[in-house]
């Protein structure tokens, strides 16, 4: 395995792995005992990346290296995430929306019981997106709020009424067809 090949392997592993890559880790996997060669590839890659790229960099950390974005890029990345979340759904938000759609009106403790984890933050997002609304309080301890889907939810998902929601049984039936 020559230097060029070692460099290629390292950059591929650096891309997929979020944890720092260590020389002894790489050596153990490829079993070629060529510590000097790998060290050379590490250095080459470090220089090459830092010379050829302005948005990315190779960083030496705790006896390993990792591929990361340059600090100056932080702000752009933050904006990118915020925009993405604002216009789209996180998986958690989508799950909660599904639970509310099929079990409305429903309280947050009940949603939490079904999901097995807390859903408070997600509820806030869904309220902001106007996909759900508060429709009352449940007559139990603590009088928790009841949530239902909105008119906008129906419009966004092309339904005339909640009766048009696909039946859950139809999904189980798919396996039998």
């Amino acid at each position, binding site marked *: 395995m020559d230097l060029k090949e070692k460099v290629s392997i390292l950059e591929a592993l650096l*891309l997929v792995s979020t944890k720092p890559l260590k020389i002894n880790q790489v050596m153990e996997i490829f079993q070629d005992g060529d510590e000097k060669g790998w060290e050379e590839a590490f250095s080459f890659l470090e220089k090459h990346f830092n010379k050829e790229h302005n948005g990315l960099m190779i960083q030496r950390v705790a006896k390993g290296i990792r591929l990361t974005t340059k600090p100056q890029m932080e702000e752009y990345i933050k904006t990118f995430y915020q925009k993405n979340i604002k216009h789209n759904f996180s998986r958690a938000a989508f799950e909660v929306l599904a639970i509310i759609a099929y079990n409305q009106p429903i309280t947050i403790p009940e949603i939490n019981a079904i999901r097995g984890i807390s859903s408070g933050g997600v509820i806030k997002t869904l309220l902001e997106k106007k996909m759900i609304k508060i429709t009352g309080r449940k007559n139990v301890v603590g009088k928790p709020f009841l949530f239902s889907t909105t008119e906008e939810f129906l419009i966004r998902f092309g339904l005339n009424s909640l009766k048009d929601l696909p039946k859950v049984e139809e999904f189980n039936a798919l396996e039998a067809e």
Partner: protein
Amino acid sequence: MASVEESLIFSIENFQGPLDLLLHLIRKEEMDIFDIPIIKLVDQYESYIQKMKDLNLTIASEYIYMLSILLNIKAKILIKGKKETKEEDPRTPLVKQIMEYEKIKKLADELKEIYTIWGGTYSREDKGEEILFIEDLNIYQIAEAFNNILKKLKLREKPPFISVKRPDIKEMMVSLLNFLPKNKKPFPFYDYLLTLKSSLEVITAFLSMLELIRLGSVKYLIKDGKDEIYLIYLKELPKDLIFEGYI
């Protein structure tokens, strides 16, 4: 002999249905697809089905159905004889179907090849929360998401034609209380939910839990940051229990 049988089982199990088997026979015997010797094809197909029966293999109903179609075509051809008619060749619909299937088979092979190359390219692994793009979402994904949650809970909705009795809160309270360890060790409420069969039952279980808390029969605690609910058994239900405000 065993090895011949084994290889036969292997090849039969590899067929993706009757069309695949027919295609295999046509190609193996180098038959002209535009002028299939139907009697020969039917004989060979039948002998395959017979072998499957001899080996006690489960034969999918589709194979038997295809056999009836083949026998039907064979009968029509025999009646018609060699005389020229303006009627459609009885083989044509089947030939079209086989050719359409062959086309799909080739495309499937090409897709597989593409996947072999490109399916093995990776970008940085997902570390944050997955974002679903709104353009990709429709009402069926909502239904699917809810179905997956139910499946995760190992819940199965009863078929709609069986009338489902609304779960009774009082019964559920007794069952939940019996489920809790009497040594006052915190017990995850979620584990109880896993024993239930429908979302209606889950919701009833939740109400039962609240009622048990209100009556002082159980205490709840939520572990730091985890938001999982744990229940602790305190005492049996009062005998003169009166329910209010539910259902």
